[in-house]
């Protein structure tokens, strides 16, 4: 084992890079395919639009990547996101001067709820599937109950203009949202690849017991990772409100499946320990490109749903084949 470990490490790195490339190549191929079936699809404007939509999936997928890297999963995404969106509009009332507090409050809410998930996993030994599932229900009940089913007066508020600008404003020909996503990609990749916290994350995902014995604070890291996942769900909720203007019920629902799909397409190993956020981000881009191509082909909803599933299965089978070479 020790003899081949450095060679193995290099191979593994190569494989992770390769998967990221696969996901990016898939996105590029889909744009070419889109251009064929629907001329003008691969224009700069449409590329920009697709990437903007992909960025929301990508942000949620950042949180999902963190928890999947330690073999967990976050099913509480939909209602943390939805609750965050509603909390932002009700606390800011669409006013710029209230916006900083509202954004801080919303992000703190997301991180706090995520932290509760983490505490349940780390200290109560509740399986991640169960605690995040229950937390999703808790957030759904609280969001619906406190907002009276989105009938409260403040619920109809728009996102503060400053938040809308943070998504829509054009900087050097691209919307600010894309720069924001780029920043998140750089920061998350740095944290995972270059910091002690990142190395601990991979170590726990590879072997929990060995990490514990090596003196890594497994519980602290776990709680932090789930808190980060909640934080990113809340961030996506804030930006989605900025994108669409108003909050709605059920706006978080698609992001659970899509974030997990992006993570899988991006080559993050679902049992933890391997994968990168760049892969997941590329996965989000290719997933959104796929949806856009299907939309351009006037594919009905059910067809999209079927193709979604088939694509994920095919990728799983391709990656799974590599896995067994190990």
């Amino acid at each position, binding site marked *: 084992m020790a003899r081949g470990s450095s060679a193995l490490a290099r191979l593994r790195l190569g494989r992770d890079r390769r998967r990221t490339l696969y996901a990016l190549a898939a996105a590029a191929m889909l744009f070419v395919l889109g251009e064929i079936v629907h001329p003008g699809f691969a224009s700069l404007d449409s590329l920009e639009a697709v990437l903007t939509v992909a960025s929301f999936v990508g942000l949620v997928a950042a949180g999902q990547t963190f928890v999947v890297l330690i073999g967990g*999963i976050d099913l509480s995404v939909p209602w943390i996101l939805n609750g965050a969106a509603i909390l932002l509009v009700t606390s800011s009332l669409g006013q710029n001067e209230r916006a900083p507090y509202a954004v801080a409050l919303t992000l703190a809410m997301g991180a706090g709820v995520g932290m509760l998930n983490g505490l*349940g996993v780390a200290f*109560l*030994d*509740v*399986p991640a*599937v*169960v*605690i995040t*599932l*229950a*937390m*999703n*229900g*808790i*957030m*759904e*009940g*609280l969001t*619906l*109950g406190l907002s*009276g*089913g989105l009938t409260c007066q403040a619920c109809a508020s728009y996102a503060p203009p400053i938040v809308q600008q943070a998504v829509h404003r054009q900087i050097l020909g691209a919307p600010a949202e894309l720069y924001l996503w780029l920043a998140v990609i750089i920061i998350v990749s740095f944290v995972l690849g270059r910091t002690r916290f990142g190395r601990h994350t991979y170590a726990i995902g590879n072997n929990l017991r060995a990490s514990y014995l090596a003196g890594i604070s497994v519980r602290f890291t776990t709680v932090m990772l789930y808190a980060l996942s909640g934080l990113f769900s809340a961030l996506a909720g804030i930006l989605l409100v900025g994108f669409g203007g108003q909050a709605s019920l059920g706006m978080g629902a698609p992001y659970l*499946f899509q974030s*997990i*799909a992006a993570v*899988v397409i991006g080559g993050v190993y*679902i*049992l933890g320990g391997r994968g990168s956020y760049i892969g997941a981000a590329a996965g989000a881009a290719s997933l959104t490109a796929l949806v856009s191509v299907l939309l351009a082909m006037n594919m009905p*909803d*059910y*067809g*999209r*749903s*079927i*193709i*979604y*599933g*088939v694509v*994920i*299965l095919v990728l*799983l*089978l391709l990656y*799974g084949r590599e*896995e*067994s070479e190990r």
Partner: protein
Amino acid sequence: MSPELAAPRRRRSLSVHIVGQNAGLLLVFAMLAAAVALYCLFYWMQQRSFPGNFELTSTVDNTMPLAMAAIGQTIVVLTRGLDLSVGGIIDLTNALAAVHMQDSLGSMLGWTVLVLLAGAALGFLNGLLVGVGRLQPIVVTLATLSIFQGLAIRVLPQPGGAIPPGYTALLVNMNQPWALLYLVLCAGLWLAFRRSAIGVAIIAVGNDEAAARANGINVVRSRVIAYTLSGVFAAAAGLFLAATATAGDATSGNGFTLSSIVAVVLGGVNLFGGRGSAIGAMAGGFVTTMIVNILFFSRIDPLYQSFYEGLFLIIAVVVGGGIGRMLRRRR
């Protein structure tokens, strides 16, 4: 994990051992009893009478689909897997039944068999991907969930279709809780299954895959059968759902993916595999229905319903896990 596996040297108290081994099952029935008592209390406070035959019948009829889905989910969870496609299979089988079933005995029987076979085929696909393809159950069944949901909407684009009244009377008699007979039948089947070769193999695979293989158990075959059975029970859930609604809806099964997991967890089935009972999972399904009933009669704003369900799930898992561990340690 290992303390449970070590054989007890001194059989000091067999009763403590039995209680420890069946802690999950005992707990879920305690929960069910508490829920029923609470329900009766709230019911009495509102109505000044106790719930009768009508309430029992509607509770049983409403829980049948979940109880069926929970049995299937249990079998998969026993192999240390998870079947997220349960909701999709219910959608699709529900739609198939509503579109095709005619008001004649032949059609009803024929389509019941066909729908169950369809469920078996869908589950078999999951089983092949997980067992032969060696893929992770969560992502595989998430992908097939998407596929099955799409197919269901293809079969029945708008809610509609019709289930013959005779079929409804056969599965979920609206006047008497005859559906309880199906539960007793399933409980009997489970007890037989647990002692059968394949049942033992499935539990062994969930406990320790390597040890099961070393003992000559065909791991792949056990997995495939577990997912296939889950598909069959999900199809049965689809039939019961169609019978209670007397019509089809290609999205009405979606919630069952999560609620079947909730029922299984409440029923004391270990999500890490190898430990648990389908009878507990069925009882877990009834507990979730009772919680909804209690919330209704305690005049809690229905918008908060998910909040209480989530909270209850966490409390049940934490308390249940704690008590189970304590009992096993004291052995």
